[in-house]
């Protein structure tokens, strides 16, 4: 009898019951709001930017036609590319150190420092850059002490300061993903390369770099997609006038109250981000495939 029952009723597989509640939660609190946002971006609006019944692409048309909105997406793209490349280059020596150092103490200390900004509120870090780059801040004080300049330089609200602050916010992500993939490289390969007479530089470019491509692409994708949507840091460090898509979305939604327009711009931003991430992934898999074949 019990055997007959067991075969008749399809038994639930392990973990299926556990998945029910979180899946329902994610559908209700994440998928449904995003679908709602997608529908909102396809609604026509009246003069007060209130969504009306019906369907139209005019919000997307408006994003494309409005010069500053179109260029904000391009500016975000350009800034994200610069931030991503900088993070990749700067993350290498730190990840290398974390993997190679024999001192447990040094590794723990560096790891804690790398992680500390990640777990500090973005708003605190941005505020910190305001202080650092302020008129009487440490950078200006140092420049004046070294007599490079007499008056304080207006470092805030410059594109370079915003760039630095964004690199600061996102660098830990690059370091952590890269550390994971550098750690997986077999020591024997490095010794073999050295024994065969390769210089350190050559070993780096022909052994370490190719083997770290999977971790590198994962890290680049995380940094890139976070940089594309960032708005808190540029707003606090650079001011509301910066041309970045995330800031424009925030501005349209919370200042101009054009929610359908903001919805359309955020889907444009998401699409551009996903396409760029797909390109990074493609680049990554092409590089590693060429390696394994050659």
């Amino acid at each position, binding site marked *: 009898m019990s055997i007959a029952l067991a075969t008749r009723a399809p038994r639930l597989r392990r973990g299926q019951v556990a998945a029910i509640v979180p899946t329902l939660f994610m559908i209700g609190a994440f998928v449904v709001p995003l679908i709602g946002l997608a529908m909102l971006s396809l609604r026509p609006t009246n003069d007060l930017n209130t969504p009306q019944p019906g369907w139209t692409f005019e919000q997307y048309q408006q994003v494309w036609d409005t010069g500053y909105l179109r260029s904000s997406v391009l500016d975000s793209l350009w800034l994200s590319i610069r931030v991503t490349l900088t993070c990749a280059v700067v993350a290498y020596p730190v990840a290398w150190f974390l993997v190679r150092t024999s001192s447990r103490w040094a590794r723990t200390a560096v790891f804690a420092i790398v992680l500390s900004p990640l777990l500090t509120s973005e708003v605190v870090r941005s505020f910190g850059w305001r202080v650092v780059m302020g008129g009487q801040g440490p950078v200006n004080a140092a420049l004046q002490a070294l007599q490079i300049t007499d008056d304080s330089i207006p470092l805030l609200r410059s594109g370079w300061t915003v760039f630095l602050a964004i690199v600061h916010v996102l660098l830990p992500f690059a370091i952590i993903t890269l550390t994971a993939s550098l750690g997986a490289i077999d020591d024997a390969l490095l010794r073999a390369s050295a024994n065969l007479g390769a210089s350190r530089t050559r070993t780096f470019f022909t052994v370490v770099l190719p083997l770290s491509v999977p971790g590198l692409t994962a890290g680049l994708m995380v940094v890139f997609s976070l940089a594309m*949507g960032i708005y808190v840091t540029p707003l606090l460090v650079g001011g509301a006038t910066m041309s970045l898509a995330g800031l424009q979305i925030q501005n349209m939604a919370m200042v101009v109250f054009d929610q359908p327009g903001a919805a359309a711009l955020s889907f444009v931003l998401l699409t551009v981000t996903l396409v760029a991430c797909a390109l990074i992934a493609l680049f990554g898999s092409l590089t590693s495939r060429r390696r394994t074949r050659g």
Partner: protein
Amino acid sequence: MAKSHIDAAVARWSNRIAVLVVCGFLLLPLFAVVISSFNSANNFRFPPEGFSFRWYEEAFAGTAWAESLQFSALLALMVVPFVVVLGTLGGYAVAAGDFRGRGLLSSLFLAPMAVPGVMLGLALLYQLQTWGLVGSTTGIWLAHLVVSFPFCVRVVAVSAASIDPQLVRAARSLGASELRAFLTVTVPLLRPGIIAGAFLTTVVSLGEVATSVFVSGSNTVTVPVRIYSAAQVQIEPTIAAVSTLLLVASVLAIALIDRFFNVSRLL
């Protein structure tokens, strides 16, 4: 041989210097905040003119900051238990389950990390408008659940992936029901992941700003959201004092996580 030794030393030292520079860069703004919070004067001059606690006193004396500190703490207390339950179930399902569509489910659970905060905030704001919950505690609570859930799933999943399925099978064959086996065998084995998930959720909830800005109402202003709006108007050392408190809270949470869970496995 001598040349290669020198080469190795040069490489090692240039690596160390690069690491020091990067660490300095990462710590610089955090130190600047902490130092300026103890400044005795009402400015951000470096080096500061004197030492005082006056900005901390001011932060606690002013009702707005005190309310926000209270609200942030309360919100974290309301968010953590729910995220821990959801994240434990979700992390266990994606890491230890053996059903079809597990990979898809894992992407769904981690998806909030990939969507820009500004977009998630807008989507939730619009949704809350239709539910009539704009500016309510429920609204910002829901937003914090969504934002911190993937972090908790990830940490629990790391723990769950290392559980030996034989243990649960043994419990089942000894007559324990599915639920009993889960509660008495699986959950205790997941404990380090669950505890780390709870602290990580606390850190995320205390620091969340990009999404919260959209759904926070006049009575539901968290500390980061208040810093966000205050810093846009005029920066004052009170902001530095509150930021330092927030920083200390997350450092404590991280130190506690580290006791239960190797922090390097968090990401």
